[in-house]
């Protein structure tokens, strides 16, 4: 399906808009309240951006320091250039551990590298332990949001999924009863897993520790009981020290859910120690490039600041209409529209940077001040330069440019166009417009004022 077809399907889904409005509306209100209680949030996010920029500029040094300290704590560190290399390393560790079942704690990097599919292909049973990931695993779907992956599902749909697959499903279809059913089901699965797999919210360079954050506690229950803990992390996740991580954690939860911190913030440094009664015997950390070094060199270094909070999508007028699946990549919303062309290629994803109003809201709420509109414009220019835009678009713009360089002709053209458009309008709006049904099928088009801006300016209307 093309982007346009996916958008069409999303806009015609009768439940999706309600689901998105509920979740993003709540997220916006909670974030606003959290920022109100943190008046220096603006300088704080500029500091966060400066910290990330410093790390990205010195990424090699910080990765080497992290590696040395993680090894000193007893973890094995692996490096992967690509998604395939990363998956192969994980599968290899699982096979050596003779793993039949892995418990996974939600990680967007895992989705990015296709780890769920790789585990399935290797015949290893995968248990998603985050409640939302569990729901979409049962539905055989992909996440539609990076914080609430099952945002598109209604309670009725979840109730049906649980009744069909849980060993002892809920008796009544209330949300607390469904959460309790998932708790019963997943608890057994987590405690019997051979391997626990997580991502990392931060890699602490000067201690070698890996930080995960969750509200459910599923990460800890997935990562402590199994014999092996595997972390897959993007190389941009490293921070110099715990103090830097603390600053970013303060911004992360506030931007994501409006909380001061997530319920559980855990730092793992190596496997089981002598005398410990619990904990994995092995800890493996896979550091994944998958295009990040190229992004750094090719004008997208600022995107590597991203801490995956989801604020940009919660505040995006386009995401709030079409939801996450329409974007077609691992990451939706504004950050996804920047990342997907870099990860999957511009030719297949060139529509994403165009599906943006450039209203700037995403940058305004970004906790690390990523200039998302500027980066999206950069993709538009690249798409034009590389000749990826369709012929009709190129010819149309060529014609416009030709006319725009001839002021008399251009003014005549706008006069004619305005007069023609006004004939279709009633009370300030145009309900149906030939050649523009793509617009007017969904909403009215504003009827232009009489006379162009230039004409009215000349008449002294200022």
């Amino acid at each position, binding site marked *: 399906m093309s982007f346009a077809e996916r958008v069409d399907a999303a806009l015609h889904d009768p439940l999706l808009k309600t689901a998105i409005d*509920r*979740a993003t509306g*709540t997220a916006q209100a909670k974030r606003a309240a959290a920022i109100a*209680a943190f008046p*220096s*949030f603006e300088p704080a996010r500029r*500091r966060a951006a400066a*910290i990330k920029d*410093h790390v990205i500029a*010195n990424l*090699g*040094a*910080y990765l*080497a320091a992290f590696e040395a300290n993680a090894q*000193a704590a007893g973890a094995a560190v*692996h*490096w992967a250039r690509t998604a395939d290399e990363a998956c192969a390393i994980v599968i290899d560790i699982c096979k050596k551990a003779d793993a039949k079942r892995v418990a996974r704690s939600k990680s967007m990097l895992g989705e990015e590298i296709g780890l769920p599919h790789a585990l399935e292909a290797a015949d290893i049973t995968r248990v998603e332990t*985050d*409640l939302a990931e569990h*729901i979409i695993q049962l539905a055989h779907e992909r996440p539609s949001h990076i914080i*609430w992956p099952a945002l598109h599902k209604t309670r009725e749909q*979840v109730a049906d999924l649980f009744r069909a697959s849980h060993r002892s499903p809920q008796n009544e279809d209330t*949300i607390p009863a469904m*959460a309790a059913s*998932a*708790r019963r089901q997943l*608890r057994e699965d987590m405690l019997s897993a051979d391997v626990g797999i997580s991502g990392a919210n931060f890699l602490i*360079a000067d*201690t070698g520790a890996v930080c995960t954050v969750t*509200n*459910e*506690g*599923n990460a*800890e*229950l997935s990562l*402590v009981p199994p014999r092996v803990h595997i972390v897959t992390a993007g*190389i941009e996740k490293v921070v*110099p020290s*715990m*103090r*830097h991580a603390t*600053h970013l*954690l303060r911004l992360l939860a506030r931007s994501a859910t409006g*909380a*001061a*911190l*997530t*319920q*559980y*913030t*855990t*730092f793992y*440094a190596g*496997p089981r120690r002598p*005398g*410990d*009664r619990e904990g994995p015997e092995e800890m493996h950390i896979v550091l994944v490039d998958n295009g990040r*070094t190229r992004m*750094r*060199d090719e004008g997208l270094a600022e995107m590597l600041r991203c801490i995956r909070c989801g604020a940009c999508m919660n505040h995006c007028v386009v995401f709030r209409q079409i939801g996450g699946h329409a974007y077609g990549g691992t990451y939706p919303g504004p950050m996804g529209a920047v990342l997907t062309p870099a990860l999957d290629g511009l030719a297949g994803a060139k529509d994403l940077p165009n599906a943006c109003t450039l209203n700037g809201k995403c940058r305004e709420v970004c906790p690390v001040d990523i200039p998302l509109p500027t980066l999206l414009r950069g993709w538009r220019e690249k798409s034009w330069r590389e000749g990826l835009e369709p012929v009709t678009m190129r010819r149309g713009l060529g014609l416009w440019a030709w006319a725009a360089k001839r002021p008399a002709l251009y003014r005549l053209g706008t006069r004619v166009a305005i007069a023609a458009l006004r004939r279709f309008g009633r009370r300030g709006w145009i309900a149906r417009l030939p050649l523009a049904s793509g617009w007017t099928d969904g909403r009215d088009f504003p009827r232009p004022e009489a006379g162009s801006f230039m004409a009215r300016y000349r008449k002294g209307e200022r």
Partner: protein
Amino acid sequence: MSARDAILGKLGPARPIADLTAQADALIGHAERPLLDGDTIDLFLAQLDQPSIAATHDAVDTLGDLPAAVTRYLDANVGARALYLPPDPQLLDLDWQSVTTLHSCPVDDGAVLAIARAGVAETGSLIFETAPVAPMLPNFLALHHLVVLHRAHVVRWLEDALLPAGPQPRAHYWVTGVSGTTDIEGQYVRGAHGPRFLHVILVG
């Protein structure tokens, strides 16, 4: 070429980490923090009362008074006078006559007791570290998480509770409220996978 060399090669020659430390320190000096006004202990207890944290609390003068406070909580909230105790002599040496102490953790109900290294007024967080006498799994398995915290260990800011660089515990974790989820239609549910109840007993 190994993947490691290829990635580090693309990132260019690395400056020695010692050269970067001053720069990194300057970037984090006097970092912005949320508003916080009042006495540290009062603020901490007020945070525990927040709906997002939803913890209850009690206070005792000495560790010797702990079993009585625990019994009070179990009677009022659990029913059964039983709980898991980690193998920490500080706790094992107390007089637990009124309570059945378990040496393995109940898998999906019951109560556990643990000692927090610190409490943080800024966020209402409790900070724990793993050790042979302090396993972490019980604190996620039980339905009721009871936490012992010395009054003197309540600090104002998260930074005040950070461990210095250098050798770390196998895991340390900040617990800020009870386990929760908003994954179905955004509705908040307590006790997703971890404890549904958090009870802090201040000592001293």
